[in-house]
């Protein structure tokens, strides 16, 4: 019995290790490529560790494209989109979770359906709307799009978190004289913190990685975001300037990694809180 448990545990660890290797492989290869000189990139027998590591790819990436500007734009857009999405989604989620009527059901249905629309279907009407609002080639316009794009899923996530909060706490606050808004701000929101962080991370990553809207809506290089700038390392027939592309892509992952590292515990807490039924 004990042996079975041990072997099962060992198998679990092996499976976990294999999964981690599978997940880490592209990123590890990206880092390896970023530090390889051009001639080594064309080698028939590539190695994990660059034989002659170099920073040339990073230098070239910064020289050829406005990476810092693009990173600033991406950060600005992603943080703003995440903040606004969470601020809007939290009270909406509260209402949808606590008032289970037809309207709430219809809203949930809308959330699910809205996820089914592909980008290409909405891009032209969206472009025209933003044009009328004079928001083409502007970061506020892009932020607005990302908020709208992230909102349904953010709402859906937060509804789950709100439902995990015992309504008795809100009732207790109500007995103490707190109104709806006060209850939401002082009682529910602090409990939802992990869920809000997880939702904000989702909105942030969605905006940080998004390419197509940014490509279509932003024209001038000084306003373009990182995914659009990374795309410039790819030329005709899919030929890529591999070294600088890997270097720039590696740099592009750093903010996400740092943010994940800083709030990892909160995210884990938030994910679990959303999953537990009371």
């Amino acid at each position, binding site marked *: 019995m004990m042996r079975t448990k041990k072997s099962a545990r060992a198998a679990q660890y092996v499976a976990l290790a294999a999964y981690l290797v599978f997940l880490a492989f592209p990123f590890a290869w990206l880092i390896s490529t970023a530090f390889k000189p051009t001639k080594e990139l064309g*080698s*028939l027998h590539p190695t994990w560790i660059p034989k002659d590591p170099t920073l040339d790819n990073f230098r070239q990436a910064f020289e050829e494209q406005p990476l810092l500007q693009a990173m600033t734009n991406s950060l600005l857009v992603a943080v703003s989109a995440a903040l606004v999405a969470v601020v809007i989604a939290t009270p909406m989620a509260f209402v949808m979770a606590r008032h289970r009527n037809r309207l709430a059901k219809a809203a949930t249905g809308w959330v699910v359906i809205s996820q089914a629309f592909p980008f290409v279907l909405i891009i032209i009407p969206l472009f025209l709307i933003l044009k009328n609002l004079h928001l083409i080639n*502007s970061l506020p316009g892009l*932020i607005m799009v990302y908020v709208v794009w992230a909102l349904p899923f953010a709402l859906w996530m937060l509804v789950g978190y709100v439902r995990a909060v015992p309504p008795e706490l809100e009732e207790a606050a109500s007995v103490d*004289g707190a109104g709806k808004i006060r209850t939401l701000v002082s009682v529910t929101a*602090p409990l939802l913190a992990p869920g809000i962080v997880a939702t904000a991370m989702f909105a942030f990553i969605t905006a940080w990685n998004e390419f*197509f809207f940014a490509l279509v809506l932003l024209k001038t*290089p000084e306003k373009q975001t990182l995914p659009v700038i990374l795309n410039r*390392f790819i030329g005709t*027939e899919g030929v890529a300037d591999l070294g600088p592309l890997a270097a720039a892509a590696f740099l592009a992952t750093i903010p996400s990694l740092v943010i994940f590292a800083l709030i990892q515990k909160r995210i884990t807490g938030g994910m679990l809180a959303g999953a537990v039924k009371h």
Partner: protein
Amino acid sequence: MGARLRTRTGTRIGTRTGTRTGTRTGTRIGTRTRTRPRARLLAAAATALGLLLTGCSGGSEDTDGRITLQFQSLAWQKESVDANKELVKEWNAAHPDVQVKYVQGSWDSVHDQLLTSFEGGEAPDIIHDASDDLADFAYGGYLADLRKLLPERMKSDIPQRSWDTATFDKGVYGVPFLQEPRVLIANAKWLKKSGVRIPTAEKPWTWPEFRKITKELSGDGKYGVAWPLKEPVSATLNLSLSTGGQVFHRGADGKVKIRFDAADQVVPGTVRAQVNSDRSASSSTLGMGGSDTLPGFFGGKYAMVPLGFSYRQQIVQQAPDGFDWQVLPAPAGAEGLTQGVSPQTLSIAEDSPHKKEAMEFIDFLLQPENTVRLAQGDWMLPTGTEALKDPALHTDKNDWATGTALAAHLRSAPAQSVRGYPEWKDKVATPALQEYYSGAIDAAELRKRLVEDGNLVLARYQR
């Protein structure tokens, strides 16, 4: 785990609510005192964000009577971007009343991006693209017909065969200015050692000779050629012009029919035989892009790789020290060295209010000496006959001369003006050719699919 989480949260909440709900007054004061610095911080952050965002909003055009044209370039390699930007700078210095704003586009996504811009009425004035991407935009009325705008110098400098690449329904919707033939990039040392005849533009290999030579060069896990056919359709159709292959035949009624005659079958038949019967072409490269074959080429696995002329830049950058390579013309057939190309083009948006000025800028950009700078930046050939005479393009260094000698044989790619071609390519021809080259289907089945299925697709576009 869940219980621990609940306890933690519960404790935290308990403390906070307890403190805040002591008395109403106490709560208010307490809250204010606690949130004031945070509120200030938030207000400051919001103000900073607002200022940053405001600073990033779009600008205006045509201020103070000065015209500002937007030029969207797809240049992506450093030399090419530099050449384009320098030329824009020179223009702006010489034309204070007509300023050009350089906008960077991307080859990878240009079609969708342009389509959206056209629909939204926000397209750039001057558009860099390729002739095989223009058909939808030309037929859709998004691009200006340039016939009345073109200066005489440009009309006569660029050969008719190049103008044909950008002509749709008799209208000219782009100025073709850079092009590249498909060539054989060869391991020079290997070829020399084998003693095979080295082909030239004057005396190229024939397709049967090419097949025989690749067989001679193969063995011991090495291959005479590696065909990178991830996108097999354009390579097959363009090279088939050398054997008289047309595939698309326009009738007197203007409608196009697909045929797959003997002349169309020479190139695909050769590739299939090399991969499946002769074993002189690697089957593993059939699904690869051009760049993917380079490590094997540098590693001595393949003697030759058919690639676009501009791949020389990658080879110069990536080849190991001492690697000796050379450019050879693609094999010739009944029509000699003829092959199809889709040149890079410069077009003007139909919605542009400054078409005349836009054409003046294009004329400046494509002055022979400027075209040479652009050609060198992209490692491609100019279409203009004056630019082609430039000594810089006739040098043996990096085999410029071999490519330049092929310029006269380049024709409009056979399919690019055919409506429905993209669907035929994606849904019919690409899978059919991939299966044929890998040996999964025979020539009869390939013909059936290309012709019967293909004509059904085209019919929908030609009602």
